[in-house]
């Protein structure tokens, strides 16, 4: 990353803060640390960071509330740092507007990769109509999908689902977000729609549908269209 980035880290565990500050020090990233939700919100407001890293288990409040509060006035990418076994919180935070998540413990490489993804997306002006993923070419405006140069015929629903994933390429989209955007459903009860359509999309887009490379399942959370 060429220009220095500003990252606000809202995390109450000192060990994690220390490790990240060391890691970012070598990466030309300005790290602003906050131990509590309240402090974190103040830092986000005053520093206008490029990325917010948010731990869900804060001593003074619910991380999901922090996501909602930030989303009231900012589109800054938010990456959730959460422990395993708190999938419900994670999904709630994603539904509230967080961009992605990482399960602790995580390596610095993983974190940097996620950050790159969200930054690329936030820097992309509007949703760029053309997307190339390996052998796949998606033209969201022209509603054309090609695989190895051959046009693939998608049903309208399949296309809506793929387009939604493509708009958030690299980022996980929750079941609820998908069901709401594609079918206008407001419950998680119809996850089986997604199972069926994900399988259909894989049949049409993947080279080996039993080893899906592009349409990735995030168990218990949602789907992700992988970036190259």
């Amino acid at each position: 990353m060429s220009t220095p980035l500003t990252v606000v880290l809202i995390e109450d565990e000192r060990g994690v803060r220390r490790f990240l500050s060391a890691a970012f020090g070598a990466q030309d990233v300005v790290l602003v640390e906050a131990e509590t939700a309240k402090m974190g919100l103040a830092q986000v407001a005053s520093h206008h960071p490029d990325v917010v890293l948010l731990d869900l288990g804060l001593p003074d409040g619910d991380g999901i509330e922090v996501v909602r509060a930030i989303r009231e006035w900012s589109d800054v990418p938010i990456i959730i740092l959460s422990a395993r076994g708190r999938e419900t919180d994670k999904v709630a935070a994603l539904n509230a507007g967080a961009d992605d998540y990482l399960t602790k413990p995580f390596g610095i490489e993983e974190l940097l990769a996620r950050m790159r993804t969200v930054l690329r997306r936030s820097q992309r002006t509007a949703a760029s109509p053309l997307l190339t993923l390996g052998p796949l070419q998606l033209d969201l405006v022209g509603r054309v999908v090609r695989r190895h140069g051959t046009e693939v015929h998608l049903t309208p629903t399949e296309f809506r689902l793929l387009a939604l994933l493509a708009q958030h390429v690299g980022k996980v989209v929750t079941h609820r977000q998908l069901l709401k955007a594609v079918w206008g459903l407001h419950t998680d009860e119809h996850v089986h729609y997604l199972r069926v359509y994900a399988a259909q999309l894989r049949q049409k887009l993947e080279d080996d549908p039993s080893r899906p490379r592009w349409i990735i399942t995030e168990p218990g959370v949602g789907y992700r269209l992988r970036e190259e």
Partner: protein
Amino acid sequence: MRSSRDGPQGRLKIYLGASPGVGKTFAMLEAAREARRAGRDVVVGLVETHGRAETATLLEDLEVLPRRSVRHGGVALEEFDLDAALARRPDLLLLDELAHTNAPGSRHTWRWQDALELRAAGVDVLTTLNIQHVASLRDVVAGITGVTVQETVPDAVLDRADALELVDLSVEVLEQRLREGKVYLPERAERALQHFFRRGNLVALRQLALRQTASRLTSAPTTGSIPAAVAGERVLVAVGDGPDAVNLVRAGWQLAEALGGACLAVHVELVSGAPLSRETQAALELAASLGATVRRATGEEVAAVLARLAHQERITRIVLHAARPSRWRRDSVAAQLSRRGCPVVIEPRRDAGHHEHPSRPRPAVPRGAVLRAVLWVVGAATAAFALRSVLSTADVAMLFIVATAVAGAHPHPAAGITAAVLSILCFDFVFVPPFYTFAVSDVRYVLTFAVMLGAGIAVSRLTSRLQRASEAASTRARETTALLNVARDLAAATTPEDAAAATATHLRGVTHREVSVLLPMVATGLPPLDDVDARDHAAAAWAWQHGEPSGAGTATLPATPTSWRPLRAGGRTVALLGLRDPLPAATADGERFVAGVGEQAAGAIARLELERQRRRDEVAIEAERLRSTLLSSFSHDLRTPLASVHGAATTLLREAERLPTPVREELLRSIADESDRMSRLVTGLLDLSRLEAGPLDLQHEWQSIEELFALVRLRVEASHPDLRVEVNVPAELPLIRGDGLLLEQVFLNLLENAALHAGNAAEVRVAIRVQAPWLEVRVHDNGPGVPAEDLERIFEKFQRGSTATSRGSGLGLAICRAVVHAHGGQISAHNRASGGFEVRIALPLPADPPPPVPMEEP
């Protein structure tokens, strides 16, 4: 009678005197003051000064318990406050006049019961008693003084006293004290001297008191009922029906006492369940209160029953009343017993001549039977008259005898006697010369008359006996069947609650009364008294605490509507049985049935409670064992990587500059690898503990097994490039409901397990198919398999296959099992015949398929 309470008993000391005024209370108070000087905690529960100044002086600086005011019939009575005494719980408590009867509404009917309860609670009790109040001496005292004492103390209480002190005063000094007004106020004293306190009375009473004390010095104190092994005299009192039965019991008891032996009071019932006469009931109660063992036996022949009992109980003497002058009994019971070789002591009847019949309620004369008897005789007479030309006189007599016999076939003798008398009259009047007079010319006809009468009575008696025997048999059969049913239901019960419910149901059915069986609650160890009538609380609590019956029909809190009896087994009370409106005490039958059921129920409840306790213990032990294995395995598995991480990190901190780059990198890599291993271990344990906490946390979403396997396969293939994974999926695989993250973990663990155990170039095959109502997943490898003995334990935590490297956490298959079970599925491990290890998982297919997905044009 023994207290259910643990801890040492107190001591009961009785100051016994020949008459009022000898100084019992005085002696007791002096002893109390002595005890207080010795530093003991002394409280006066209740002492009557009777206005005596010297007594009042002694009382002055002792702590006196306030009395309890009771209103009874508009009169305010002051009573000893037992509850306050128990709450105060002194070392030593003074309680005057042991023979006192408590006011109605008190817990116990008699004060001696208060004293025993205090003693059972660990309080030493000092008390006083006059000789005329000793139960077994009541008759003797009445004989001497002409006064029948109403308030008595059972001899058993004296026997159970830890000390008995005679307060003796010569007759002269007592008379002197009376005259000086030290016993009664002067105006009453003179009258007393002329009546109860006549010199003759005083001398006799003093002798009685001296003798009583002396006899108790020679006999070791018994515990109330007959000690199990008494060598020596055993006296059986055959309690009869008459009002004199009470006297016989006293006489028998005194004989047993004089012989230093035990006493057994027996009442023989011809018919089981026949109501006892009031007199018999009183006699048996007296016997029980004296400390005799009380038995009720049933049998045809009184003598046979007594002889059998005498043999069984090694009785040395049978005390019974002289036979009543009997009209038709050939042989007295005493004579029969003598013939059987039983030693018999005959007591003269005191009521001889007064009472021909016991006051047993006699059945009313059956009018219908008498009328039928008359009709039979009239019929016989008519037939005989019509056929008189062909019949001889003897034939006519036979006809009448037959009529008499048939009519007499009724348990009540009235029918037989009516028929006999009527037959004789008809026969005599019509058929015996001189005809149509009642005169008899031939003396031989008198014999005929006698036969007629005899036939009538004999048939009636036989019928009566037969009927009684069959009634007894059917009662016994009913009782036996009922007891068998209870036993069957109790044996089938699996919890103490079941047993209690079965007991209540059976007793309700037989007694037609409201029955409750209360079990102690886990929280308090007490029965749930909130569920019972508020009037029953005190009695139920008392019965529970003391392990003795209370409430209606007993001497403790008799005003309670329910009779409470503890169900005891193994020396402790396991439940309480409450019987609303207790059975009339006189039905030995019902009483025996209730007691029998109670005994069975107590045994069953105790057994089931023990069983429950044992199961609880087993579960606790198993859980503890698991916990400790888990802990030791876990700490081992965690400490190993921690040691590497810590070692590498500290080395880097100290020596970073001096270490060559490759070494530094190796140390860093080791930190990364080992912490990764720890992370996987902790993640696994977290998953497990979440699963073990209960399946509530599961996310039940529609899942595609195929999709999950695709995901897992990519991950495993990325980390094990040499591994080949083949997944066989049918074209139309139904979705199942489950937690995606956990199922993913299962499949990941299975594939990684295969990679770990089957070596690098392993092949793993996954076969998924529908075997309604299951979705079956088989994962097998081409590795060496697992030793047969490991197959059993392979799903346990921290069980690593013997071929495993140290990289496995030992949690993989345990997590698989927990997840599969949480989804209602099954998992098993096998060695394939063709080689390789296989895990089979069956996950339940949902009962209802997911709602259809809206389809569209392709």
